[in-house]
């Protein structure tokens, strides 16, 4: 009952409903820990975790590092830009060298989809995927779910609109998997060029009109336009994107009900979402960041608690 069915957290796709429920309920206890005068528990004091970031990140890396430190784990950090990767070392070699220094768990972000899955097959350590290309970002989906639960109490039947760059978004994919498993309804909204061709096969509905999507939903998750992943032009101009898919206060206030606004960050203020929306009382963007630490603590705690880690 209190163990995960998986050895690694590679994606939401591999998790069962009870895994997700376990992570979220454990996260609730960790959130309470984070509000104590001393925000630290000794659970992982004999565990060493390496954070391998082959792609830039501030929020996720900081969040993982804080989660690890608040569980009393030993932490080593690694950023690809300042490493031997630029000298041509392969991924397995890099990771095996790090593991030779007795590391028990690896948190990895990588620009290539499936990097975590690949690594899990070849090395003996627990792996937590912190984002792999446009594939999955499981801890983000879990913290999004936790934040939605805090506001709405249940995910079952919740109407969630995911708006923006669906094509390049690992956040969207992980969120869709998770929300489907937990019985929420999902609508994706964005320019047709940024909509994957077979997205409806994942059990979501496509709504090209932003206002219709917003009018329908309880929660709107506004994604960032990932210009760094766009090798060709997917829409004529950012201004046109903002006109059609940007959320501003006027649009938000014209809705018949109060919806919850989420954003996985980093925000491009004025593009997908305006400042007055991002800072409004309907936005839970900073709660998402706060919950991120608790959710990541829960994931690390539950994975590390499986006995065979020390044999790795």
């Amino acid at each position, binding site marked *: 009952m*209190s163990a995960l069915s998986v050895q690694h957290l590679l994606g939401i796709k591999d998790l069962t409903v009870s895994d997700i429920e376990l992570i979220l309920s454990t996260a609730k*206890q960790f959130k309470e820990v984070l509000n104590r005068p001393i925000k630290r*528990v*000794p*659970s992982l004091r004999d565990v060493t975790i390496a954070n391998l970031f082959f792609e830039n990140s501030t929020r996720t890396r900081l969040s993982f590092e804080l989660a690890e430190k608040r569980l009393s784990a030993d932490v080593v950090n690694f950023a690809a830009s300042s490493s031997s990767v630029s000298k041509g070392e392969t991924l397995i070699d890099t990771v095996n060298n790090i593991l030779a220094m007795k590391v028990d768990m690896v948190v990895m972000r990588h620009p290539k989809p499936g990097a975590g899955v690949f690594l899990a097959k070849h090395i003996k350590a627990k792996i937590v995927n912190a984002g792999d290309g446009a594939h999955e970002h499981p801890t983000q989906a879990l913290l999004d779910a936790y934040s939605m639960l805090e506001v709405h109490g249940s995910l079952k039947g919740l109407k969630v609109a995911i708006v923006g760059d669906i094509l390049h978004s690992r956040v969207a994919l992980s969120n869709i998997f998770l929300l489907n498993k937990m019985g929420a309804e999902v609508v994706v909204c964005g320019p047709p060029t940024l909509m994957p061709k077979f997205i409806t096969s994942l059990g979501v509905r496509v709504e090209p009109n932003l206002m219709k999507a917003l009018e329908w939903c309880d929660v709107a998750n506004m994604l960032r336009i990932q210009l760094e992943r766009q090798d060709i032009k997917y829409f004529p101009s950012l201004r046109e994107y903002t006109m059609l898919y940007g959320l501003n206060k006027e649009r938000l206030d014209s809705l018949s009900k109060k919806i919850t606004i989420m954003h996985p960050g980093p925000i491009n203020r004025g593009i997908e979402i305006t400042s007055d929306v991002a800072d409004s009382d309907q936005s839970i963007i900073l709660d998402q960041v706060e919950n991120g630490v608790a959710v990541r603590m829960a994931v690390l705690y*539950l994975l*590390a*608690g*499986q*006995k065979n880690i020390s044999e790795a």
Partner: protein
Amino acid sequence: MTHKVLLGPDEFKLTLSRLCYELIENHNSFSDTVIIGIQPRGAYVANRLAKQLKDITQQNITSGTLDITFYRDDFRHQAEPLAAYDTNIDFLIEDKKVVLVDDVLYTGRTIRAAMEALLQFGRPASVELLAFVDRRYSRHLPIQPDYVGRVVDTIQSQKVKVEWVENEGTDHR
């Protein structure tokens, strides 16, 4: 497995009352005292005691619950991690006299973890231990209770369970 009832409902009530009066002897006004039950089952004892103390002394009794899951020393020594319960300490324990409450005292490892967890909330003036049942001669650590409901002699393979109206429907053992 055979069961043996150590305390019936009447004795159970009597024992709780006796513990209350022992606490009153040492704590008098309870103005500087807080009662903290260790989750999950120590919380039942703490709630009962707090309720009864309130009836007897006509004073407000501060009580809370403490979960020690993240402080256990057997994490990663078991097949799977244990589920955590709620910690509910919405008062300051700094310079307070803390009475830690658990239902069964056995190896003492829970109490060690509880003391570590407790110190994360501040520096209490003193910490006392109340155990509803003390399985003596089975300690792994140098920990002894200050208040005991019932002392029992047991061997390792035996189990002691305290049943509560709140949970099992009857007060027992």
